[in-house]
């Protein structure tokens, strides 16, 4: 999609985000130990993906986002966004940002606020006029004629999203975009993210709700004490556990003895049981025995670990099971 109202020469073909050995050390004050917020962070985010940034509170996620937006200067290392220095305001005109602890000017209304935000990114007036109804509709924000101070938390969050979209950015940094939203609105935001990705936008998502990251992200990264401890596709982290949930039409004594003959005693919860066969052959043998009883198999679902389980294992230092 063409740039809106700006004609910014961002480096074509360059990755959306690239850092090399990024360090950030804060010096809180005299007599206090320096705080290393980022330690040798090297990442590369290609264009057109949704990238999830995970980590505990204080892991350095916000510092990393701020470094990528030119809000904070790294102590060492380099960062590039869209092939440009993040401190370059011209590059920032192609970026949208939704901060976590956002404060909006309460005395303003949605429309003038969006005009203002667009103007700061160099979007011309005619384009802003055309774009405002589009973005308001996209984030499903009703009653934009109210003053912002009258907005609910969810409405303010939607407006925050709308301002991030005003310049039709190539790269979006979203810090907890579903914070304060109801389940339906969360779904709308997830759909919006997928739509934006389909339009070729890159989204850098900083989120605590791991189920959402799992649903929308193509890549993710876990930061722990300022260091990258894991990175990859969420599907790589949500491994099969080797367990299955077996559900039968009915569980009779014959079923009990057939299953026990293959896997030993099982604990049934109604018509379902958690099973852990040694290998595929044993699983097939179980199915053959059950079919011979005869009994109908309603479902056999592999159990996968969630991203949340994986995240907790990584953060607490327990290596994930292979």
């Amino acid at each position, binding site marked *: 999609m063409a740039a809106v109202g700006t004609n910014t020469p961002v480096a074509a073909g360059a990755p959306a985000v690239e850092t090399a050995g990024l360090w950030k050390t804060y010096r809180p004050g005299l007599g206090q130990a320096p705080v290393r917020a980022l330690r040798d962070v090297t990442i590369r985010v290609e264009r057109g993906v949704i990238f999830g940034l995970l980590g505990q509170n204080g892991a350095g996620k916000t510092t990393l986002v*701020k470094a990528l*937006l030119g809000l*904070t200067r790294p102590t060492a290392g380099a960062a590039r966004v869209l092939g440009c220095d993040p401190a370059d305001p011209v590059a*920032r005109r192609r970026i949208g940002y939704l901060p976590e*602890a956002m404060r*909006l*000017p309460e005395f303003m209304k949605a429309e003038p606020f969006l005009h203002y935000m667009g103007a700061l*990114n160099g979007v011309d007036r005619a384009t802003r006029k055309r774009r405002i109804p589009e973005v308001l509709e996209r984030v499903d924000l009703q009653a934009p004629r109210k003053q912002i101070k009258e907005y609910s938390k969810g409405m303010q969050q939607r407006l925050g999203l709308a301002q991030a979209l005003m310049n039709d950015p190539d790269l979006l940094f979203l810090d907890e975009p579903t914070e304060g939203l109801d389940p339906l609105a969360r779904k709308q935001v997830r759909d919006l993210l997928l739509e934006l990705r389909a339009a070729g936008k890159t989204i850098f998502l900083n989120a605590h709700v791991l189920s959402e990251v799992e649903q929308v992200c193509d890549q993710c990264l876990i930061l722990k004490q300022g260091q990258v401890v894991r990175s990859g596709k969420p599907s790589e982290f949500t491994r099969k556990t080797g367990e299955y949930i077996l559900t039968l039409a009915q569980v009779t004594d014959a079923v009990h003895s057939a299953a026990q003959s293959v896997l030993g005693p099982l604990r049934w919860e109604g018509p379902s049981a958690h099973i852990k066969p040694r290998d595929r052959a044993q699983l097939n043998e179980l199915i053959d025995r059950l079919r011979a009883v005869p009994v109908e198999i309603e479902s056999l679902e592999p159990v996968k670990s969630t991203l949340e389980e994986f995240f907790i294992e990584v953060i607490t230092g327990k290596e994930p099971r292979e």
Partner: protein
Amino acid sequence: MMAIFLRAFPELISRRVGMVLVGLALLMPALHIYGWSRSLERLPDGSFVVHAGPTAMPVHDFLRSDLSNQLTFAHTFWVLLAIFATAPALTTFQERGWAELLFSKGLRRWEVLLGRYLAGLTAFAVALFFICGVPALYVWWTTGITQYRFFTGLGLTLLSFASLLSLMALVSVLQVNAALLVMVGFVQFTFARFLATRGELYVLIPWDWLKTLLDWLYYLLPKNAGLQRAATTYLTTATFVSWWLLWTTAVFAVAALAAACVLLQRKNI
């Protein structure tokens, strides 16, 4: 920067103190003009007298003292009120949540600071024009007596305020706190009066190093009290006390603002 300026201006006057400034800027000239229209009398020879109290006095004499009082008032009360009104303009945009949003946009931080500084200065200039300038223009129009010197005096008041605003801008980058800015503005305003008359205190100060220190502070800091005196002296005698007061204050205003811009640009948000 223009977008910042255009947004900061209504933000400023929508605050309570800003509204007071706007209200007074509308009320004061109306009362003043009403008073003038009641007390001015045109004599058959075409000259004007002013009925102030039981006697009538020539308009030139009355104007000299009345406008001089206005300049003094503008340089004290209006400047102090404007410090209250403009301090938030220099801090709100640097507060957490708002700073991240603003500084992630496609403009330099110094443009944001400068836009808001100019909005504060313009708000004061407009208020000053309405409060003092409009009555002076009325007198000029009705009597034909030119008021160039009075407007020059208002210009000096504006410069004095600009220097205070620059100092407040510099402090705002170091510590984002509107109350602190108000205090800094007040302290500088008061301290400038003390420094302007420091010679009278030197008989009480036995230490040379302290006298040297006070001298240097006087050289470096804005000469707000000196500018006020220069404005009233120029109005009444048409002589300019010292250009040095003017250019050193202007240099301070520019240097402090430049330092604020550089520090803000380098600040970790």
